[in-house]
């Protein structure tokens, strides 16, 4: 297959690309959608790599990959809709925000972390951005212990050091959500 480097528009039934998740499951995706994943794009930017090659995504679970693909597919469609028209742009932006909210709404902390790690590994800038924003919103009123659990961090302060820092910034502990 020739590597023509062009992205077909989504509504033209163009080429597809095969992505393999960590459990071996294969996802066949439209080329335009696959190129949203910069990691995949770089994979094919190398000379001599044909579009038939299955892209191994060893660090991404099939659940996460399915959601990523679903998001990118909708994102590509929405981008095609917007253009010079203010109204259409505004509508597309609202739809995209709705899409993002829906993606994170039902997700557990583990699920959202899995998505962030996937978006980071696959290098999808917009998706990583809104996911980080969503996580930020989740943790901003949470306790220190909650954050440690979420990010799997050990408390390496000595009891005295921790007490001293806490006292220094006691005002920041007001109004924190109960765990």
């Amino acid at each position, binding site marked *: 297959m020739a590597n023509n480097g062009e992205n077909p528009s989504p509504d033209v039934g163009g080429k597809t690309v095969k992505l393999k998740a960590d459990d071996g499951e294969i996802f066949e995706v439209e080329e335009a959608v696959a190129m949203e994943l910069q990691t995949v794009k770089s994979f094919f930017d190398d000379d001599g790599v044909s579009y038939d090659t299955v892209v191994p995504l060893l660090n991404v679970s099939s659940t996460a990959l399915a959601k990523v693909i679903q998001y990118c597919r909708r994102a590509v469609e929405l981008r095609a809709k917007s253009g010079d028209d203010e109204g259409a742009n505004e509508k597309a932006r609202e739809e995209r925000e709705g899409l993002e909210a829906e993606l994170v709404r039902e997700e557990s902390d583990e699920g959202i972390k899995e998505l962030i*790690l996937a978006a980071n590994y696959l290098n999808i800038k917009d998706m990583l951005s809104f996911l*980080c924003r969503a*996580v*930020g919103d989740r943790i*901003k009123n949470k306790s220190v212990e909650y*954050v440690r659990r979420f*990010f799997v961090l050990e408390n*390496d302060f000595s009891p005295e050091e921790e007490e001293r820092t806490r006292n220094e*910034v006691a005002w920041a502990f007001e109004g924190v959500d109960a765990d």
Partner: protein
Amino acid sequence: MSEYVPDEVVVNILQRLPVKSLIRFRCVSKSWNSLITSPAFVHSHLNQSIPNNNNLPHPLLIVRHCSSSANRALDKEHYKLFYDNEAFEECAEFDFPTKSRSLKHFRLIASENGLICLSEQERYVLWNPSIRKCWNLPKPCITARKHSGSTCHEAFGFDPRTNDHKVVRIVIHHSTKEAPVEEALVEVYSVRTCSWRLSSASLTPSTNFTDWRKPKACLKGSVHFAALDQRNGTGIGFVLSFDLRDEVFREMIFPHNMTRLHTDIVTCVFSGSLALLCYDEKNFSCSIWVMKEYGVVDSWVKQFTIDIVGGIEKNALEATANDPEDQDSNSKQFNRRSHLLSTICQLITRNIR
């Protein structure tokens, strides 16, 4: 199985958090404490939050109001956060962490990047309300002579080139019998070095500043004073800028067609440009001239004239903006400004006995 989140993703998340959360999360671990307090992170968090404003619906404005009464114990400085919109609702009040000793209130020098600089004679205080830290600066080098022997002109600004906040102090020793020669001395305090240093910059001691005890605009790493030129007797005014990094004075003449009936001319920053707030006491009006192109005298434009019913107390021009101006259309800004000025009038007139 819980997975470990890479550092760059953690930073991405933390940069979007409000300051209060970040301060609390200093207690998560030693590495988070170092990260959150590192100058690089602070700098990038500040730059991130200016456009997004932490997802708040409206920019915020800090309004300072000093109440005073016959009973000194009741004197209070109020710092309140308001939503900068048509409704102009109060959002929060800060606890002012210190108290002036000899004067009724501190004098506001200026605020920049969330740092507020206050002074009381030769005592200078820096206060960052978002992280609730307040500290006294060391004593300055130049001691002003008491009893009308000296006049002090101060400015506070931020230089993005050196990533440093600075306090500038111009002390003019007037001529006396003992010391007949008038002299002007300049010293600069750098937050980075935590010290005052005499500057070799020089200026004419007889410079007639029009903005004594008013905040000075800080733009492009320079603080801007306003003065009248006595040399030719024409009384043409000019902006005297002091470059915080190079410590050099430069002049920019006022608009050619500006009338000279102003009692107070103060520099400020308006939508990212240098501007002059000119208060005309006789006619109770305030005009705002904007220098559309920095450094180009021909680019001064008289943007607004605001009628202020009832007049403004001299200190009304001390309103500080917590966030840089947004890119709204001029008329919206005009409404906001006049609303702000009138609100300040109300705040001040409420306290006039």
